[in-house]
C-alpha cells in the first residue's frame, strides 16, 4: 500500500512543519523548548533519570559487591588507578568504592525516594483537595484547617518530628516525605478545583446524575492537572533535597541505602583532612539534579499558565 505516499506527494513541496497537525501536545512542546535553559535542563534530567534507571548497566563497578571492593583503594584522589588498573575518575570513598559508581547508585536511591513519595503524596493530596473543593462546607473547613496548620510548620521540622518518632528506613522516610508534601498538593488542587467546580461542564455532569466519584476523577481532576504537574515537579526537587538533608543528619536512610545525601555525609568525616572529593562530587550531582528539576518546573509553570499565554 503506497497510497499514503502518493497522497502526500502532491503537497511535498511544502515544508514539513506545515503538514504536521498542531496538537495541544505539539504546541506545548514547542512552547517548552522555546527556552534554551529549560531544554538543556530537560536533557540533563533525562540523562540523570536514564542513569538512575540503568545504574547496574552503566556504572563502571558495582560499589556494593564486596568481592570487588578493596579497602586498599580507599580515599584515593580523583584520577588515580586502582590495584587492578582501573581508573577512579572521581576518586574513591572511605571504604574503597569507586565514587562514580557509588554516585550513580546513590542517584537511583535519591530519585527513587523523591519520585515515589511525590507520586503518593500527589495522589493523596489531589484526592483530598478535590473532595474539599467539591463538597465544601464542613468537610472543606476541616480539611483546609489541617492543611493550614501543617503548612505553618517548616517541612524540615515536620519531617524531623516524624523521623524521630518512626526511626530510620527507606519506608519510613518515604512516609515522612509523603506526610510533609500532601498538604501542598491538597492546597493547589483545591485552589483550581474551586474555580472549575462552578463551570458548566460540572453542572452538566451533575444534571446527568453521574456519580460523585466519576465527576471528581473524570471531569474535575483532568482540568486541575496543569498546576498539579508544576507543583509536582518543584515538590519532587524539594523532596530530594529534604531526603538528602535528613540522611546527612543521620535520621533518614540507613547506611545500607546510600543516597547522595548519605555519600556526602560519609565524606564529611574526611573533609577536615583535605579529602574533599568524597563529599564534593556527590554534592555536585545532587545540586545538578535539584537545579535541573527546578528549571524544568519553572518552564512548565510559564508554559502551562494560561495568564502568561502569548
Amino acid at each position, binding site marked *: 500500500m503506497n497510497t499514503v505516499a502518493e497522497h502526500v506527494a502532491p503537497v511535498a513541496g511544502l515544508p514539513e512543519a506545515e503538514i504536521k497537525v498542531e496538537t495541544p501536545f505539539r504546541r506545548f512542546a514547542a512552547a517548552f523548548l522555546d527556552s534554551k535553559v529549560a531544554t538543556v535542563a530537560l536533557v540533563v534530567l533525562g540523562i540523570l533519570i536514564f542513569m538512575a534507571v540503568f545504574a547496574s548497566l552503566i556504572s563502571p563497578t558495582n560499589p556494593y559487591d564486596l568481592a570487588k571492593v578493596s579497602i586498599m583503594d580507599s580515599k584515593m584522589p580523583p584520577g588515580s588507578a586502582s590495584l587492578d588498573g582501573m581508573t577512579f575518575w572521581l576518586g574513591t570513598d572511605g571504604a574503597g568504592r569507586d565514587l562514580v559508581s557509588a554516585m550513580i547508585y546513590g542517584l537511583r536511591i535519591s530519585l527513587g525516594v523523591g519520585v515515589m513519595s511525590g507520586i503518593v503524596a500527589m495522589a493523596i493530596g489531589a484526592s483530598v483537595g478535590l473532595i474539599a473543593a467539591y463538597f465544601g462546607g464542613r468537610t472543606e473547613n476541616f480539611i483546609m484547617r489541617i492543611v493550614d496548620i501543617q503548612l*505553618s510548620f517548616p517541612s524540615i521540622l515536620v519531617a524531623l518530628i516524624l523521623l524521630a518518632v518512626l*526511626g530510620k528506613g527507606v519506608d519510613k522516610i518515604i512516609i515522612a516525605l509523603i506526610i510533609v508534601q500532601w498538604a501542598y498538593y491538597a492546597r493547589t488542587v483545591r485552589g483550581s478545583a474551586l474555580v472549575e467546580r462552578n463551570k458548566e461542564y460540572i453542572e452538566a455532569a451533575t444534571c446527568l446524575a453521574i456519580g460523585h466519584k466519576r465527576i471528581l476523577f473524570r471531569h474535575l481532576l483532568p482540568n486541575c492537572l496543569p498546576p498539579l504537574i508544576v507543583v509536582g515537579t518543584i515538590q519532587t526537587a524539594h523532596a530530594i533535597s529534604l531526603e538528602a*538533608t535528613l540522611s*546527612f543528619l543521620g535520621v533518614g536512610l540507613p547506611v545500607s541505602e546510600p543516597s547522595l545525601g548519605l555519600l556526602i555525609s560519609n565524606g*564529611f568525616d574526611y573533609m*577536615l583532612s583535605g579529602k574533599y572529593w568524597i563529599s564534593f562530587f556527590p554534592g555536585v550531582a545532587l545540586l545538578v539534579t535539584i537545579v535541573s528539576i527546578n528549571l524544568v518546573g519553572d518552564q512548565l509553570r510559564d508554559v502551562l499558565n494560561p495568564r502568561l499565554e502569548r
Partner: protein
Amino acid sequence: MTVFIIRRLMQSVLVVFVMSFLVFGGVNLVGDPVEMMVSDEADQEERERVIKSMGLDKPWYVQYGLFVTNAVQGDLGKSFVYGEQALGIIVHRMPATFELALAALLMAVVIGIPLGVFAGLRPEARTSKVIMTGSILGFSLPTFWVGLMFIMIFAVMLGWLPSTGRGETVPLMGISVSFLTMDGLAHLLLPAVNLALFKISLVIRLARAGTREIVHQDYIKFARAKGLTTQRVIMVHLMKNIMIPVVTVLGLEFGGLIAFSVVTETVFAWPGMGKLIIDSIQGLDRPVIVAYLMIIVMVFVVINLLVDVLYSILDPRVRLQDVKG
C-alpha cells in the same frame, strides 16, 4: 476581635495537645532505651531497677498522664544520657541557637537588601543578572552541602576561620553570648552565613520586586524632581517602602531559621538545640526528644498565633472571614 483570638487560642491549645500525644506516643514505640542504659553484664535485678527509676514499667497511658501532669509544671523528665532535667538542658542550649538565628536574620537583611535594591534599580545590568542567578542557586543549594563547602574552603584550604564549635563566650545579662569576642565572632561567621543563605535569596527577590514597583511611583518622581540626591531618594524614600514586605516576611521566617538551624548546627558542631536533638535521636534519649519537640511546637504555635493576630489587626478581612467560617 476577641472571638477571633479566643478561637485561635483554642486551636493552638488543641494543636499542642495533639502534638504532645503524637510525640509521646510515637517516641515510646521506638527503640528500647533500657538496652542503652544498662550494661550487658547487668543482671535482671539491675535492669528492673533502671526500668523502675525511669518509670518505664507503668502502662503507656499512665506514663502519658504523668508526662502531661509534669509537663504542665515544667518538668519534662530527666535525660537518660545527661541525668539532668531535659527542659533545663534545652533551655541551656537555647541562647546559642537564638544567637545563630538572629545573626542569620541580620545577615539576610544586610546582604540581601542592597543586592536586591541594586538588581531592582538596574534590572538589565550584568551584575543584576549575576545576582538573580545567585539567588536561584541560593534556593536550590542544599544548606548542609554549602556548609561543608564553606568548611572545606575557609577552614581547611584557606585556614581563615574555625570550622567547629562556638568559640569564647561572655555572659551578657545572664546569657552567654559569643558575638562580643573576636574568637566568638570568627566562629559565628560561617554558620550564620550558611543559615542565612536561603533567606538572603528570599530578601533579594523581595527587595528587587519591591524596588521595581516603587521606582515608578509618583512620590519617587516627585522626590527626584525636587532635586534630592539619588542617594537620599534611595536611602529614605525607596528603602522605607520596600521594608514593609521584607520585615513581614522575615518575621514569618524566623521560625524557619530556628528549624533549619538543626542542619547548620550539625555541620558546624554548634552547641545549640538543633545539635542536641540530633544527638538525642541517635542516642534514643527520649525525654530530651519529647521535650525538644514540645518546646519547638510551642515556639511555632506562639509565632503563628502572633502572626495571625497581627494580621487580623492589620487586615480586617481575615478576621471577618474566620468568624463567619
